[in-house]
């Protein structure tokens, strides 16, 4: 059958990694161990086999049909081994002679394997390059999940209409040269967890009786046979349009993305003997609009290209596991109807002044309130403030919108390009400020300490300095993280071809690049863009090293 193609492919990835290190006794890290050498290998072997059957046919010149069915399988094994020793007579042999060290370190080795099997099917159909239809269904089986839930099923469906290919569209083609409207639904899965996470394997632990080491074994987790795929369902509708011979391009998308059965390390009661367990937990929804505008203007001598994109996203927790209404997680709360990354803490209410000790002393959280202590709002209205009971949602780390804007100008050999990006409406937990505003005299303090409350400086914003402050997480440390940043400016000059050819060179380019030159923000931490945290705890700045402001120059010569 001439329209049928059967394709079998087999591929493999072999990675051989060798790690060697030596900490000489002449540096601080190697001083105590008197030299430490280590050598090890970490190898991975992956193979992928794809078998597909494709049927394509054009019927009557206008019906284009393409059908695919297939089966793919993938398997990967990792192995590692390391050995090392310490206490060398001198630093001459590095890691090449571990037996020369006096103390052998415990060698270690490990192995892990994962497998993924997938059945695929897809139908593509288009009529006269005007109407497009795609439907697909795939089933994936992953070894990583529990024995009851290895398989996930992921359908998708998409239709599109290239309006500009219709005959009736011809009259307006000078203005709108192409326009396409499209909508799609698709399900995707996530299996990005480690191996053996559903199994109750044993971990080895050591204990010392006298001078003898003994090895014990204890379960590493509670087994979870139901651990399965994290599933994302996405609806999308959009328009792509090109104007004036593609000088202006516009893309608009609206989407709703619902992710359920999230793979999360869920806190469980410590009475189980464990602190957390990997489970499929909760449902999160993201919906929003994305807009992209590209322009390309000019001629061969002068041109201006720009690219602007902006996206508005709204994040919402639809359901939490075990029918819970909310969970607290450090400085965060996960509550139905609120966003991921909602901060949960106390609300500050000024500073306790000398005259108010009797009336407001109960709102400081201190057993013996003194003037200058910070006051907090009594959220639950029980007439006293306690850290645990008087917390509320105090902003979230999700931005209202983020944007990026790139402009590139060229004039003859010169090129100037600038990238501006920004985020608006997100809050950041300034963890560094929280640590620096303890004013306990035993560590560095923020300059705000200069305004600390004293009887002669009755501040209404900054508390007194004291030896044993109780660290209360409050809205004082949740700041507006909105920013606009000129992320990159590049200026370059290409030597004219005539000149470079005379120098027997293909091209010569001079370049100056400035990174992070200007940032406009009210955030008081080092860098509004650098925060750490996980999916459920985004937007915490623990004083991470900020993105540096750099200016670099370059000369690029191509021979």
């Amino acid at each position, binding site marked *: *059958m001439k329209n*049928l193609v*059967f394709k079998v492919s087999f591929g493999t990835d072999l990675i051989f990694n060798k790690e060697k290190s030596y900490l000489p006794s002449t540096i601080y890290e190697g001083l105590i161990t008197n030299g430490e050498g280590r050598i090890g290998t970490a190898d991975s072997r992956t193979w992928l086999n794809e*078998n597909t*059957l494709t049927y394509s046919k054009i019927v009557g010149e206008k019906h284009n049909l393409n059908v695919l*069915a*297939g*089966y793919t*399988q*993938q*398997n990967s094994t990792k192995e590692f081994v390391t050995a090392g020793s310490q206490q060398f007579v001198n630093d001459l042999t590095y890691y090449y002679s571990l037996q020369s060290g006096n103390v052998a370190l415990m060698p270690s080795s*490990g192995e*892990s*394997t994962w*497998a993924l*099997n997938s059945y695929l099917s897809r139908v593509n159909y288009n009529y006269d390059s005007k109407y497009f239809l795609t439907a697909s269904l795939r089933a994936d089986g*992953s070894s*990583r999940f529990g*024995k009851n839930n290895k398989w996930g099923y992921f359908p998708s469906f998409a239709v599109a209409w290239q309006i500009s290919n219709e005959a009736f569209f011809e009259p307006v083609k000078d203005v709108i040269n192409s326009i396409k409207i499209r909508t799609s639904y698709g399900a995707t899965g996530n299996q990005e967890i480690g*191996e*053996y996470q*559903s*199994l*109750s*394997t*044993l971990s080895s*632990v*050591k*204990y010392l*009786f*006298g001078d*003898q080491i*003994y*090895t*014990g*074994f*204890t*379960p590493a987790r*509670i*087994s*979870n046979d139901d651990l399965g795929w994290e599933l994302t369902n996405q609806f999308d509708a959009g328009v792509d349009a090109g104007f004036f011979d593609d000088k202006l391009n516009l893309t608009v998308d609206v989407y709703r993305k619902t992710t359920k059965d999230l793979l999360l390390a869920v806190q*469980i*009661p*410590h*009475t*189980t*003997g*464990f*602190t957390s*367990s990997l*489970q499929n937990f909760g449902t999160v929804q993201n919906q929003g609009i994305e807009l992209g505008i590209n322009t390309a203007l000019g001629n061969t001598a002068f041109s201006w290209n720009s690219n602007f994109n902006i996206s508005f996203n709204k994040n919402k927790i639809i359901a939490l596991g075990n029918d819970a209404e909310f969970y607290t997680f450090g400085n965060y709360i996960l509550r139905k109807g609120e966003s991921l990354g909602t901060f949960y803490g106390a609300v500050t209410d000024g500073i306790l002044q000398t005259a108010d000790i009797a009336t407001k002393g109960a709102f400081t959280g201190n*057993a013996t309130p003194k003037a200058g202590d910070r006051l907090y709002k009594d959220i639950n209205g029980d007439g006293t403030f306690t*850290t*645990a009971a008087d917390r509320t949602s105090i902003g979230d780390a999700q931005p209202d919108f983020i944007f990026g804007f790139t402009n590139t100008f060229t004039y003859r050999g010169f090129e100037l390009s600038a990238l501006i990006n920004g985020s608006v409406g997100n809050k950041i937990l300034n963890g560094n400020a929280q640590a620096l505003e303890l004013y*306990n005299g*035993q*560590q560095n303090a923020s300059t705000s300490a200069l305004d600390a409350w004293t009887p002669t400086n009755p501040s209404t914003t900054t508390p007194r300095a004291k030896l*044993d*402050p*109780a660290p209360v997480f409050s809205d004082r440390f949740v700041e507006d993280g909105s920013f606009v940043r000129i992320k990159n400016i590049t200026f370059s000059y290409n030597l004219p071809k005539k000149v470079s050819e005379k120098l027997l060179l293909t091209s010569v380019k001079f370049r100056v690049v400035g990174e992070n030159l200007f940032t406009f923000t009210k955030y008081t931490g080092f860098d509004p863009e650098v925060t750490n945290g996980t999916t459920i705890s985004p937007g915490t700045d623990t004083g991470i090293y900020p993105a540096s402001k750099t200016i670099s120059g370059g000369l690029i010569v191509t021979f």
Partner: protein
Amino acid sequence: MKNITLYSLLLIFSLSACNPLDENPKAFIGTGNFYNTTEDADAAVLSIYNAINSSTHTLYNRLIQISTEMATDDYEAGPRARNAHVRALSNLTHDASNDRMLEIWRQSYDGINRANVAIDNIAKNPNLNSQKDKDLINEAKFLRAVLYFNIVRWFGDVPLVLHETKGLTPEVLNVTNTPEAEVYAQIEADLLDSEALPEVQSVKGRVTSGAAKSLLSKV
């Protein structure tokens, strides 16, 4: 021609047997392959000792010492004690959010669970019935009793968990407090059992009948 299609489809589906999805870790022992010999049982009991004293901030290293003494007038949080939770203990302003208290709670139940794992799995295996196996169960019972004796004195009513936690349903995970008197009754029962331990253990440092008798007298 049709046959070729058929064969290729058959080939595709027959391949699925080549790549099994069952996980059989080579570098880890599964709980299903363990607790079969006296050596396995011994390793299960040894892991309880590890839970009560391994690194710096474990129960019988510094954790209990700091957390209890700091709240007395024997210890004061000096200028070098920068941890706010430790300072709170010293000032007696600590509450349920204190991380030292949380660690005591967590590590105690970690040890209790390890003891429950050892007791359950040794007892249910009919091949593990030598005197040594019985001693191991009693050793685990003693260690469980020590841990409950500690937390019942700190917290009063506590959940009395006496079997390995299996499963993740809310009914299994969420346990309720047991009245103090019942916890004490269990401690007493465990210690009475562990009095049957040998008077001298071949390895110095392991629990003996003398240890069980002295702790029982204190309880």
